[in-house]
């Protein structure tokens, strides 16, 4: 049997850190032939990026390949000489990164960066470079080549920057492409067009591709071979799509279950259905809790450098109406910058609305200024769970302090003797082990931090809980558990949620009704099942079509 095009054998990578040597990955074996597309799937900390970076020796000053070999088309890459690296990087093996906006030099014109690349690898001379740059841009389906070549990265959108990165990577007819989460940070609709573009070019040139992703749906849709990694180890490798139908390793099973599909239910996100969610949910009676009428938030755009603030205004939220009933979860979905987070901050009374009414149990709480609302008896009724479990916890406060904060500040009949019991009960409610209660946030895992954030939010039995992308910073397996916890809490305490997210698939599982937001306006609303099966607005349709799906 012929040797594979790319062979990684028993690879181990070590990093020297302040806490001593860390074994990032160990005993990795990957084989890849020409024209094959392999997915390396794993959650954060699995070592999937380290594996890919070691191929091009991009491990930084403190990382080194401790063991094993990497062979690419007969060349050994585990300990490459400077001249070999020069020949390989960009010419034989190309790479695409996440966050396209920051992977381009911010103060160099796009055209210059492309011609740097072409001239570096002797693909063009000074004379031919401009023409070749335009050819390259055409290949990545950029029409407006004149504008793009003369633009700086900040003048282009994220999707456009990623197209330029792809053009850079494919400038030299390289034979292996490494794509490291190429669509993370882009909106779902852009995601799809970028992936389709990459895959089209790849098939056309018969390239070998390594796609690094945390998204099983994307792996399923675009790849032929799969490697699943956990904690620096390969736990399962599979040469066909049978990985998705008959996974062998328990971790793969867990991951597959946790990845939300088009029809998955929140109770099935873990391999076993949790007891709390085994009973069907009770029907919601239509008792109005929150009614938002004509909500508008206007920001004044500052002109730089001048004293006069010109009349440039921008409506982040532009006439929004909706209702939330008691015990109901309403999903608010939209892409970045659509105004969904502003809406949630307005309702949480962290910001002052410009126009409109926020009726909470019939009382217009929008009238109270955000500064005075702290002393309002309604303060404890509206609480929030934040997007970033790390950033939303004060790094100097222990879990106990964090959970007790709202009790100390807002509870009227506060009793010092009861505090401990109260906090312990809350911790139990959200499933935070009591032995962790005096730890600081950095000593907790992502899931534990999310639990602390939820415990704090429900400490005073709020009536309305605003969930602002509560799982978007979490790995899917943790997301599954947090979603189940939220669902359980809602059912048990008859809580009402406003669930804000960019991910229709996640929102769908928890919400009874869905609002779709675009450019500050709600463009579609209705019962979840109806919106999902019969979307009316074009934007909802695009959003639905763009989500990568696992086969059921």
């Amino acid at each position, binding site marked *: 049997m012929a040797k594979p095009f790319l062979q990684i054998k028993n690879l181990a990578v070590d990093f020297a850190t302040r806490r001593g040597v860390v074994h990032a990955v160990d005993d990795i074996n990957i084989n890849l032939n020409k024209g094959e597309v392999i997915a390396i799937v794993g959650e954060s900390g699995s070592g999937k990026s380290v594996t890919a970076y070691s191929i091009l020796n991009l491990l930084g000053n403190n990382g080194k390949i401790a063991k094993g070999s990497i062979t690419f088309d007969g060349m050994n890459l585990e300990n490459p000489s400077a001249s070999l690296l*020069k020949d390989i*990087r960009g010419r034989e093996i190309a*790479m695409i990164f996440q966050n396209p906006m920051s992977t381009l030099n*911010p*103060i*160099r014109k796009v055209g210059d960066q492309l011609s*740097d690349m072409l001239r570096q690898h002797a693909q063009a001379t000074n004379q031919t470079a401009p023409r070749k740059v335009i050819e390259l841009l055409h290949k990545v389906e950029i029409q407006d080549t004149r504008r793009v070549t003369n633009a700086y990265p900040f003048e282009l959108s994220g999707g456009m920057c990623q197209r330029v990165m792809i053009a850079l*990577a494919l400038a030299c007819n390289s034979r292996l492409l490494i794509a490291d989460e190429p669509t993370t940070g882009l909106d779902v609709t852009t995601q799809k067009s970028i992936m389709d573009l990459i895959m089209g070019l790849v098939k056309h040139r018969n390239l070998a591709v390594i796609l690094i992703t945390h998204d099983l749906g994307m792996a399923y849709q675009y790849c032929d071979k799969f490697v699943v990694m956990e904690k620096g180890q390969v736990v399962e490798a599979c040469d066909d799509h049978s990985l998705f139908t008959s996974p062998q390793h328990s971790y793969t099973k867990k991951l597959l279950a946790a990845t939300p599909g088009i029809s998955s239910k929140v109770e099935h996100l873990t391999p076993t259905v949790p007891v709390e969610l085994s009973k069907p949910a009770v029907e919601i009676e239509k008792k109005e809790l929150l009614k938002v009428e004509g909500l508008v938030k206007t920001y004044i755009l500052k002109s730089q*450098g001048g004293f006069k603030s010109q009349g440039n205004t921008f409506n982040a939220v532009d006439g929004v109406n909706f209702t939330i009933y008691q015990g109901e979860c309403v999903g608010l979905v939209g892409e970045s910058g659509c105004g969904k987070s502003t809406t949630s901050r307005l309702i949480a009374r962290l910001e002052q609305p410009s126009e409109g009414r926020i009726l909470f149990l019939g009382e217009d709480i929008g009238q109270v200024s955000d500064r005075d609302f702290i002393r309002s008896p309604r303060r404890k009724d509206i609480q929030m769970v934040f997007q970033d479990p790390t950033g939303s916890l004060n790094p100097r406060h222990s879990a106990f302090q964090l959970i007790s904060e709202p009790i100390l500040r807002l509870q009227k009949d506060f009793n010092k003797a009861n505090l401990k019991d109260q906090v312990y009960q809350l911790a139990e409610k959200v499933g935070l082990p009591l032995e962790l209660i005096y730890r600081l946030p950095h000593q907790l895992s992502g899931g534990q931090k999310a639990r602390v954030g939820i415990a704090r939010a429900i400490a005073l039995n709020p009536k309305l809980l605003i969930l602002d992308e509560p799982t978007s910073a979490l790995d899917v397996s943790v997301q599954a558990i947090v979603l189940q916890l939220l669902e359980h809490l809602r059912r048990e305490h008859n809580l009402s949620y406003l669930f804000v997210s960019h991910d229709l698939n996640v929102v769908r599982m928890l919400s009874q009704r869905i609002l779709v937001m675009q450019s500050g306006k709600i463009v579609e609303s209705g019962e979840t099942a109806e919106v999902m099966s019969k979307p009316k607005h074009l934007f909802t349709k695009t959003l639905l079509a763009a989500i990568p799906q696992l086969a059921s």
Partner: protein
Amino acid sequence: MLAVPSLIGVIVVAFVLTRSLPGDPAVYFAGITADEESIAQIREQLGLDKSIFHQFIVYCKNLTQGNLGVSLNTGQSVASELSARFPASLELTLTGLALALMAAIPLGILAAVNPNTWIDHLCRIFVTAGASTPIFFSGLLLVFVFYYLLGWAPSPIGRLDFFYLSPPKVTGFYTIDAMINGDFETAAAAAKQLILPAITLAIFALAPIARMTRSAMLTAMGSEYVKAATANGIDRRKIIFVYALRNAMLPLLTIMGLVFSYLLGANVLVEKVFSWPGIGSFAVDALVASDFAAVQGFILVMAVMFVVLNLVIDILYTLVDPRVSIDG
């Protein structure tokens, strides 16, 4: 133009500060033998009998006409005193700054390209030691070594040894004026006088420049775009100088205004050590003698320089960084 409110602030502070200097200028002008009446007369002449607010208005009016008042110490107009001495200070400061930049930027790059190695540590110790040395001490030390011990440098007094004639004034910089005049011997002599005080200043300014270069280079070298350029096989030299250094220049530019302002302050001490006839030593003498017109004039010159400098930096910034445009 953001510096304009600061400029107004400086004018006000300078005015208040100098009016509160101890001592009565009228008494000083009238002489020791003067009686009450003549002191009052002089006070009236100087406008000191008016309210502080009135005095301020008069002062501002004079300012717009370029009239900075008369120095008590020398009896000359402050404007002419300052303009005569200003080139000396500027020549010294600019030379010091140029020396510092030439040494510090390569040091910073060197340290950033080899982070946490002995090269890095050595650079760090060297520049920190420079910034830790009191400027009067390093000046005296240089004099001791290069004048007393080795005899390489001329005696540390003034801009030019006494047996040379100062060159005809064009720019006010002796070295350049002498060269324009074709008198290279005088130019060399002026340069010899200039070198020690300029080095003293440069040592002091090394640290902020070198450390900013290092940190900005480290940030740039650790950035995503440098990683991507490396993965794309761009030449390391090109990455360092075209991709990283140009980006690193931006934060460096923002601190240059402050560095320059530090150097102006340090100038006062250097000029004292080397008997340099600049505006710094002029200001010290004026302060000690409660010569308020002179002190005010000095502070204003400094503030105007500060504004001009910030303007230059802003313009440079827009040239380097496409994300900032002049019209906002």
